[in-house]
């Protein structure tokens, strides 16, 4: 069968080439430098890898794009990039579906007389735009330019360009900004920055609502840190406690969840500081500082706080002690309430007294996020707009009309602007109200650089020709300036040369001992230039001693529920909602797909007589939305939580008309101190509509019913030293069969797995897994080969979520194999449970007989609307309707590596073969390798005393060993 498959692939490859021949011309592609130097560029059926930067969120991870026949087919993390070190999150993996999104804007558009957008040529578009700009006659400040945080050459170019047209207002807008944190750092330490957090050194992570595993600052990096420190080493492991109104994924992965009303976090932090000082645990504080601190926290005795926050004073003391004793620890704050800055300040003080500042909280290398312009200033500009002070608005790479509260009023305001230009690659809420749309390349098609943290400069090169008639923002601006005869100010032919010049300056600054070309080539190849920056020490800023701490205030009726809108793992702020993979990716905690919901505590639901899937009307002073109910103990009573990201009115077929966006419920009033948008500042009234709306969940049952699928072990037991239990010698019904060369196997460490689901998307990308849509998934027909199963092992009071990646176990005694009448599935000599798609007749017996239920059946013919089909991996068959499919440890990668080894006639190296899931796992929870080779990592791990097989009693002898999750229990101190 293998032979047959490869023949088939050759054919695919050829067709791929013909597809790619469509225009490989410009200099850019000549100036590309592949990550691994191949003999020649495009070889049919052979991959070329290019290093670039992921721009889906401000974290700025480095990625390697795998291109075949001139099209990118897969992205993986760039191992050289310090932020993500070769790993990617689900969003990063799905970035290709931005590039190949069928709803992309394919050429410039202008709004015609009939109010609809009509295609125009670039030339025409530039003419119009240039005309508009020249009308300004030097009143450049009537022009406003909104971009996200760009932290790189393009950012500077935009400033230059604005200057060249006589100045103009510049806004760096991020929906998930950290203004209060930045402000708090100024107040506490006098540095208006966002520091580096070294979670991997923190013995105790105390997170005040910071979801660092999903979206907070740099999730891939922090997930890695988190898992590293959580790993059980020398009798101990890092501990973590999550403080917040709801259990996020981060909360679910912490040892403890301390539910507090939003906004009360500050008092808890202060209470802890108070306790620490009272017990004299804070060492080395200069007397004046100590004195000042004592004054601030004096009113916040644990007892007082206990009353305010609703957790016992002893608990506060225990936490306080633990926080100091487990030095270095770290407290993180993601404050979104009306007193956000207070909270951040309080948390800063906590870190300070525990001596974490300088240890796990380091100033010096600041985060690009610090450059974000505050929501307050945004409001200011909007006011100007109302006064008609702005006549041209440029919007690039952001979608304020979706993300900002009071969307309707905003639209009206923008309506007041005579000329709105959008550079968006996709139709979205903002392009809806734009007069001119100049579609930008996706980052896969354009040059650029991005510096997420000072010194870490990712270099972004195009990995393929633009799919459509789109241009890079930089090029557009430069061409525009040519039209405006501003060449003397902006003398660059196109952005590529500007970028090079920028890096020349960098070159001069850091003076490496190579000539510029080598430096440049090397940087492009490696995907950037990475320098470490010295930590600078900070002292308390006297201003802090004058700080007074306010309780949170809420807009809306006092009896309403405090509303918690939260960005999600899959959609971030909503910008990813048009990626089908992410739409069909179950939310790890709720396991719901394709829509969003309102999360309410059972006790509240009971009061209001709300049942599961009841369609609810949620009303705030600012607006109202309708969402189905999800009743869950993941939120504390008195609050309701709604995931952000769905509810797009215009964002392509996959995002449009799904659920609703809670942002429209928020009040527009910015926070007093920092001017940040207040997320947790609204009370909403929840009412029944009497209608039902079924949510699609992939979880057949939330409990594991004593099936021992996720197994855990207590930290104590581990410390007392357990032996891997040897099974009683079993009499075999039939002789053992041998694997002559390799026996591929996998180890999955459940203690490392945080359920981030990156593996799921990676698998879809690698293995051409089709998406089915809400209705099919609701009926249980999703196609994912690997899934993150979530079991709630908790009590009635408190949920306790366990995550387990479930994929084909490639059993030695696979029950699925013998029942197949046509040998479509069999056990290959390397221990893989092979599945021969072309042989399958579709009796489906194999799936019935698979205890792990990891086989997927093609119920219908899979759909890949143009140009999504260009992403298909030519090394993997696209399955026909009526056949069974499943994971085979990425057999195509195994064969590839074996071939390579054969050509170089050497043995395979351990770690040379990496399946897509394992490759992308940010926490390195999944390890693959040859169980026959005793030196291989996987073989060693498989011997770990925590190891077990799922459903061992069925004697299926799986190739996957799971390592039990360690239950550390509540922190003690």
């Amino acid at each position, binding site marked *: 069968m293998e032979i047959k498959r490869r023949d088939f692939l050759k054919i695919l490859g050829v067709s791929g080439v013909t597809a790619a021949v469509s225009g490989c011309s410009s200099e850019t592609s000549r100036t590309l430098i592949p990550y691994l130097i191949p003999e020649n560029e495009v070889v049919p059926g052979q991959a070329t890898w290019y290093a670039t930067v992921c721009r889906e969120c401000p974290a700025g991870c480095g990625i390697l794009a795998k291109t075949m026949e001139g099209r990118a087919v897969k992205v993986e993390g760039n191992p050289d990039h310090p932020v993500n070190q070769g790993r990617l999150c689900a969003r990063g993996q799905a970035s290709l579906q931005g590039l190949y999104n069928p709803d992309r804007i394919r050429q410039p558009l202008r709004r015609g007389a009939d109010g609809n957008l009509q295609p125009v040529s670039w030339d025409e578009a530039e003419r119009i735009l240039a005309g508009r700009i020249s009308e300004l006659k030097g009143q450049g400040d009537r022009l406003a330019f909104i971009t996200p945080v760009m932290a790189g050459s393009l950012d500077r170019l935009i400033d230059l360009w604005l200057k060249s047209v006589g100045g103009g207002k510049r806004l760096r807008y991020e929906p998930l900004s950290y203004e209060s944190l930045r402000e708090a750092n100024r107040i506490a330490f006098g540095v208006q920055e966002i520091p580096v957090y070294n979670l991997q050194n923190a013995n105790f992570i105390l997170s005040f609502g910071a979801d660092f595993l999903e979206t907070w600052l740099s999730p891939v990096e922090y997930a890695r840190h988190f898992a590293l420190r959580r790993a059980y080493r020398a009798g101990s492991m890092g501990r973590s406690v999550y403080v917040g109104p709801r259990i996020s994924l981060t909360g679910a992965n912490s040892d403890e969840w301390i539910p507090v009303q939003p906004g009360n976090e500050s008092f808890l932090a202060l209470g802890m500081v108070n306790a620490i000082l009272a017990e004299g645990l804070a060492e080395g504080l200069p007397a004046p500082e100590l004195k000042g601190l004592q004054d601030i926290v004096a009113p916040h005795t644990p007892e007082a706080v206990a009353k305010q926050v609703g957790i016992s004073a002893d608990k506060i003391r225990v936490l306080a002690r633990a926080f100091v004793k487990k030095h270095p620890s770290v407290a993180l704050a993601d404050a979104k309430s009306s007193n956000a800055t207070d909270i951040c300040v309080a948390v800063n003080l906590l870190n300070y007294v525990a001596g974490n500042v300088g240890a796990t909280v380091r100033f010096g290398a600041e985060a690009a996020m610090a450059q974000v312009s505050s929501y307050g200033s945004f409001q200011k500009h909007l006011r100007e707009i109302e006064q008609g002070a702005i006549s041209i608005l440029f919007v690039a790479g952001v979608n304020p009309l979706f993300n900002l509260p009071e969307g309707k009023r905003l639209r009206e305001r923008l309506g007041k602007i005579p000329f709105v230009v959008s550079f968006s690659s996709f139709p979205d809420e903002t392009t809806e109200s734009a007069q001119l749309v100049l579609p930008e390349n996706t980052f896969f098609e354009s040059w650029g650089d991005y510096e997420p943290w000072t010194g870490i400069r990712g270099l972004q090169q195009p990995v393929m020709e633009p799919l459509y008639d789109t241009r890079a923002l930089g090029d557009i601006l430069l061409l525009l300036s040519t039209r405006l005869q501003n060449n003397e100010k902006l003398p660059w032919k196109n952005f590529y040369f500007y970028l090079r010049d920028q890096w020349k300056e960098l070159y001069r600054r850091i003076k490496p001992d190579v000539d510029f070309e080598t430096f440049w080539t090397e940087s492009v190849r490696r995907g950037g230039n990475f320098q470490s920056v010295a930590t600078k020490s900070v002292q308390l800023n006297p201003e802090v001693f004058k700080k007074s701490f306010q309780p949170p205030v809420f807009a809306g009726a006092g009896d309403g529920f405090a509303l918690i809108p939260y960005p999600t793992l899959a959609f971030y702020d909503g910008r990813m909602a048009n990626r089908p993979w992410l739409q069909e990716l179950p939310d790890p905690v709720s396991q719901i797909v394709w829509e969003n919901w309102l999360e309410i505590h059972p006790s509240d639901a009971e009061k209001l007589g709300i049942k599961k899937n009841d369609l609810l009307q949620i009303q705030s002073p600012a607006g109202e939305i309708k969402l189905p109910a999800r009743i869950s103990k993941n939120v504390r009573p008195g609050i309701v939580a709604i995931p952000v990201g769905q509810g797009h009115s215009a964002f392509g077929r996959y995002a449009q008309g799904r659920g609703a966006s809670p942002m429209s419920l928020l009040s527009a009033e910015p926070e007093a101190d920092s001017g940040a948008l207040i997320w947790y500042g609204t009370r909403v009234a929840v009412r029944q509509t009497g209608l039902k709306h079924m949510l699609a969940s992939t979880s057949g049952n939330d409990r594991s019913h004593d099936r021992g699928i996720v197994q855990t072990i207590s930290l104590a037991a581990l410390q007392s030293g357990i032996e891997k239990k040897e099974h009683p010698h079993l009499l075999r019904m039939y002789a053992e069969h041998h694997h002559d060369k390799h026996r591929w196997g996998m180890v999955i460490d459940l203690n490392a797995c945080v359920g981030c689901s990156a593996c799921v998307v990676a698998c879809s990308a690698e293995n051409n897994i089709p998406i089915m849509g809400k209705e099919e998934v609701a009926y249980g027909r999703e196609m994912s080969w690997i899934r993150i199963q979530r079991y709630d092992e908790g009590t009635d009071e408190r949920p306790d979520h366990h995550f387990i990646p479930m994929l084909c176990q490639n059993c030695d005694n696979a029950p699925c*194999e013998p029942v197949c009448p046509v040998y479509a599935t*069999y*056990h290959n000599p390397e221990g893989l449970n092979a599945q021969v798609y072309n042989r399958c007749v579709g009796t489906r017996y194999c799936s019935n007989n698979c205890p792990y239920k990891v086989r997927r059946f093609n119920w219908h013919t899979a759909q890949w609307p143009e140009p999504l089909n260009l992403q298909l991996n030519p090394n993997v068959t696209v399955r026909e309707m009526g056949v069974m499919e499943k994971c085979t440890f990425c057999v195509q990668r195994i064969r590839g590596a074996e071939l390579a080894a054969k050509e170089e006639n050497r043995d395979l190296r351990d770690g040379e073969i990496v399946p897509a899931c394992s490759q992308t796992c940010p926490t390195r929870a999944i390890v693959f390798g040859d169980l026959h080779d005793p030196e291989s990592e996987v073989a060693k791990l498989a011997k770990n005393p925590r190891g077990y097989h799922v459903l061992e009693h069925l004697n299926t002898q799986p190739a996957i060993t799971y390592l039990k999750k360690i239950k550390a229990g509540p922190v003690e101190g």
Partner: protein
Amino acid sequence: MAKNKVADSLTGLVGTFFHLDSLLQAIEQLRQAGYRDLQSFSPVPHHNIDATLEKPPSPVRYFTLAGCLLGAATGLTLTIATSLHYPLITGGKPIVSIPPFLVIVFELTILFGGLLTLGGMLFNSRLPKVNIGPAYNPRFSEDQFGLWVRCEQKDHETVTTLLKSAGAEEIIPAGQGREL
């Protein structure tokens, strides 16, 4: 009628009876008179007919046995040979896993046994036949019995009288009447 071309001094007579006992009587009388080449026609089988004709038991059983053995052999070779020829491990079960194969063996045993049984029956009773000989009378299938006697022209009278005495309703000459 190919056989009729064979001009033969031998001919046959067919007596028709309304009653079984008359038929039996006729058979006995004829056999005593030395006419051993008899052939009865009857709407139903009756052990007495076989008894009086003293026919040996049917050899069909050997066909059945042969069929069963053949089937079993086929089953074994089919399953084992094909599995060895393209050895694929499934579910850790041995390439030659006898227990499952025995199921196939069993089925084929029955199948071949059945087929050869039928074949044996057709072969032994000279079926199928294209055309029916003159000796046959449609009422033999309904409620009458017939007896065909092979005899020479000269014996016709004697045979006729014997048949008559046994109670034959009508007697007609039927050349090579043997179930042609």
